């Protein structure tokens, strides 16, 4: 657990670039599918040939509005694209089309869970912009290759207020946001492929001071763990500087996950003057009330509401409800299973959070790729509920389902795992065990209750796990007393 000198207060704000799940680019018809051969998804518009013009992709606006509605934000029904001017080889036009003064999404908020309970994090704004291409530094003999497939990919830049006060709060916010964009299906959230990227603004100030300290902006922190570690490192670095009587320099710093350090990328003095101005090629975007209301009608149940419902209606613990609503696919898997099984909701939660998640993690699979369907998972839990399987044999069936060996009942049949509940059959084994273990039987009779566990174990072993353990236990006690 990371701690720091509590005389210092930490202030964190995050800027998240979320790639919108459109079919085509924000200002051209090119595909945005990931992983294509370099420059095969770069049209005349994307490579900024002389004379080409941008045309707004309405789908990107729709997804941005969906996000705004999901965080209860003000939607700017008249919003304006602006040009952000700078030179870089992967920026074909020499400017990025973004939004400056009038972004599509205005002030909203997102609630996170902290150690001290729920906390609201303000979201200053979210604006539409286009992504740049990529510079490729390998395989070009000292030269740089440019791949413009990504150029023009629609992004929603989500800017938080400086409301977070610890690295764990920052991560909690980021996870919440990650969950939300996937829930409302505006972004696939794939951090490896860069679909969900985060920059952090970090500063510290003496606790009680009103004025904000000088901040640094951390870049290249594209996993939850790196965000946390980069901020932790930066807090320590800044406190060290201030305690030594120094001053924090306002600058952009790059996080190096291998060395676990941040290092200066460019200072404020080197900062670009982006010469923002409204893009004359794109008239202001005007969103009709009906357009917004249509989008509102497509919003799914949001994670917060779902979590509350899982707790109140399905009786889940806060912890289970949290885990099972963090991802929309997980929540849907859970609800489908609950609807299909006779097992108690709590058992469903236990098996999901336990066995299923453990196996998914081990195989690095998303729940959508689970080899076990909700129907088979529900059936497995039914067989526990109706005493066909014990907890132990159920795990064997689960393993077989995972390996796609067949369906639940066929596996039970094939492996002979049907639990023995027939009194006669269990009695025979119990008698054998009593006869084979006179020493333990004597101990029990002398008052050592704990030895019963050993004896039940013997029964289970002899029945190859199929005897109903509760029945065996009762029968042993009856016979030995």
């Amino acid at each position, binding site marked *: 657990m990371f701690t720091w000198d509590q005389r210092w207060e930490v202030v964190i704000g995050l800027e998240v670039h979320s790639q919108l799940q459109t079919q085509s680019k924000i200002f051209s018809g090119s595909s945005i599918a990931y992983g294509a051969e370099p420059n095969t998804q770069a049209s005349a518009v994307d490579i900024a040939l*002389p004379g080409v013009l941008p045309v707004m992709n309405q789908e990107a606006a729709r997804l941005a509005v969906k996000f705004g509605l999901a965080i209860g934000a003000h939607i700017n029904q008249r919003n304006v694209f602006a040009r952000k001017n700078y030179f870089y080889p992967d920026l074909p036009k020499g400017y990025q089309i973004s939004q400056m003064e009038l972004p599509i999404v205005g002030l909203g908020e997102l609630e996170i869970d902290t150690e001290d309970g729920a906390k609201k994090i303000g979201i200053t704004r979210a604006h539409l912009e286009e992504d740049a291409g990529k510079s490729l530094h390998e395989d070009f003999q000292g030269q740089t290759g440019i791949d413009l497939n990504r150029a023009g990919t629609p992004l929603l830049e989500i800017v938080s207020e400086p409301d977070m006060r610890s690295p764990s709060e920052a991560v909690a916010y980021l996870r919440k946001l990650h969950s939300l964009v996937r829930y409302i299906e505006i972004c696939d959230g794939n951090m490896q492929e860069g679909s969900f990227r985060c920059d952090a603004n970090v500063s510290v100030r003496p606790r009680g001071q009103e004025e904000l300290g000088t901040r640094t902006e951390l870049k290249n922190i594209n996993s939850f763990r790196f965000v946390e570690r980069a901020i932790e490192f930066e807090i320590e670095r800044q406190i060290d500087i201030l305690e030594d009587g120094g001053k924090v320099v306002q600058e952009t710093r790059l996080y190096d996950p291998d060395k676990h350090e941040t290092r200066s990328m460019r200072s404020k003095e080197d900062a670009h003057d982006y010469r923002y101005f409204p893009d*004359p090629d*794109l008239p202001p975007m005007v969103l009709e009330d009906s357009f917004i209301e249509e989008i509102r009608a497509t919003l799914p149940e949001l994670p917060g509401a779902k979590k509350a419902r899982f707790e109140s209606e399905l009786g889940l613990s806060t912890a289970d409800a949290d885990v099972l609503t963090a991802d929309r696919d997980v929540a849907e898997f859970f609800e489908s299973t609950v609807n299909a099984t006779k097992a108690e909701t709590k058992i469903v939660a236990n098996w999901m959070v336990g066995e299923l998640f453990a196996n998914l993690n081990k195989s690095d699979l998303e729940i959508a790729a689970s080899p076990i369907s909700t129907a088979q998972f529900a059936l497995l839990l039914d067989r526990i509920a109706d005493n066909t399987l014990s907890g132990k044999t159920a795990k064997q069936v689960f393993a077989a389902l995972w390996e796609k060996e067949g369906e639940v009942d066929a596996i039970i049949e094939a492996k002979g795992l049907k639990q023995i509940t027939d009194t006669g059959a269990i009695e025979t084994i119990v008698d054998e065990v009593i006869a084979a273990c006179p020493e333990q039987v004597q101990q029990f009779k002398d008052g050592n209750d704990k030895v019963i566990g050993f004896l039940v174990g013997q029964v289970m072993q002899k029945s190859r796990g199929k005897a109903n353990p509760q029945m065996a236990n009762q029968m042993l006690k009856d016979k030995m007393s």
Partner: protein
Amino acid sequence: MTIITLAQLSADLDAGKVSSTELTQEYLQRIDASEHNAFISVDQELALTRAKDADAKRANGESSPLLGVPIAQKDIFCIDGTQTTCGSKILENFIAPYTATVVSNMHDHGVVSLGKTNMDEFAMGSSNETSHYGNVVNPWSSKGATLVPGGSSGGSAAAVSAQLAPAATGTDTGGSIRQPAAFCNLTGIKPSYGRCSRYGMIAFASSLDQAGPMTHTAEDAAMLLNTMVGFDSKDSTSLDVPAEDYTTQLNDSIEGLNIGLPKEFFGEGLKPEIATLIERAVKEYESLGANIKEVSLPNSHLALPSYYVIAPAEASSNLSRFDGVRYGYRTEEYTDLVDMYTKTRSEGFGDEVKRRIMIGAYALSSGYYDAYYSKAQKLRRLIANDFNDVFKECDVLMGPTTPSTAFSAGSNSDDPVAMYLNDIYTIPANLAGLPAASIQAGFTSAGLPIGLHIIAPYLQESKLLNVAHQYQKVTDWHTLSAPGASAHNVGEKA
């Protein structure tokens, strides 16, 4: 020698007096023989292929007014497979892989593109002297004194004036169609902003640029404009309005027409001789039954300063794509990325372009944005409001197109501000997005043509052309051919 109009060529083609191939060959020969430097590139093969295609279509019974008519295209329009330089060294090696919407619209109507005309670099200039491809000779030059054709559409103006093409396209950001039309005795139309798609037209100042026709007559301008306009989903500033036939109102009577003469267009700086000629033209309108009244555009003195902030600001950003990375000129040797950018752009752009990029970058820079760009946009609204006010009492406005006539090459090149004053009367229409024309209105004692400037309310191109045509029906200034015009004559041949 007489001028040859599109209307006449259209009729000749229709009557089978001449084929598109013959016409195209004739104009290609004239271009080849001319010494006006009006063209940057000519693709004879492509032109003749299109001409043959047009002839085949006519043989098949297809008919369209401009089917098979050859036209010169300003080298600001991308045409698939052709060199497209925009008058700049930085695009010397650029072959466009696609065609501008305006040109493809014209091609769809059967127009034959003859070649690409010379122009001021990136349309920045009023004399065609900023072109990387050399000065253009105004066909109205007399022996010994080489006059500029105006700019930026100087090559197009010279080509039509010298009869190297019966008509040409131009673009107008602050007067680049109308000023050269006035200098070369042509009719030039700048349509309402958004009428012609800007897709494929290399951007100078996006909020001001507009393509238009340069012809001998208003009737020709209407015919050519018919083939250029139309909504284009590839240009978000393109107007989604129904297509019109601009020739239908040409012959409407203008009796009772209310003509406003903004007093600001007749003030200091206007050559007295031009003022007199404009007054004479206005009198002609009066004799056609028009009512004349003096009006005021009180903020028009703010147009030039406002324009010279907005246009360079947009240009500074629009021209950033010419960086040597993906296409166009790249410097030979460089040490690193910044060096590559610096040398490429220093060597690839001419002085006027660099001057405007610097002005524009300054006007947009942090700390100056409010004082310059923001303020210029506010002035722009005031200027547009002035027009809204006067059009409540007038149908059109008239004045001189330029304060002076064509000047000799080199005479203004050391004084950018003197050069910028060429556009003082034309810029307000660009800032307000209004349609405007320059038509032939006579000659000075030195024998140089002058232009009558007509501004109409938004989207009233038909009215504009009607007013221009009615004047041309009773005058013959537009029929006078330049002394430097080509000796050949298509009309005689036909």
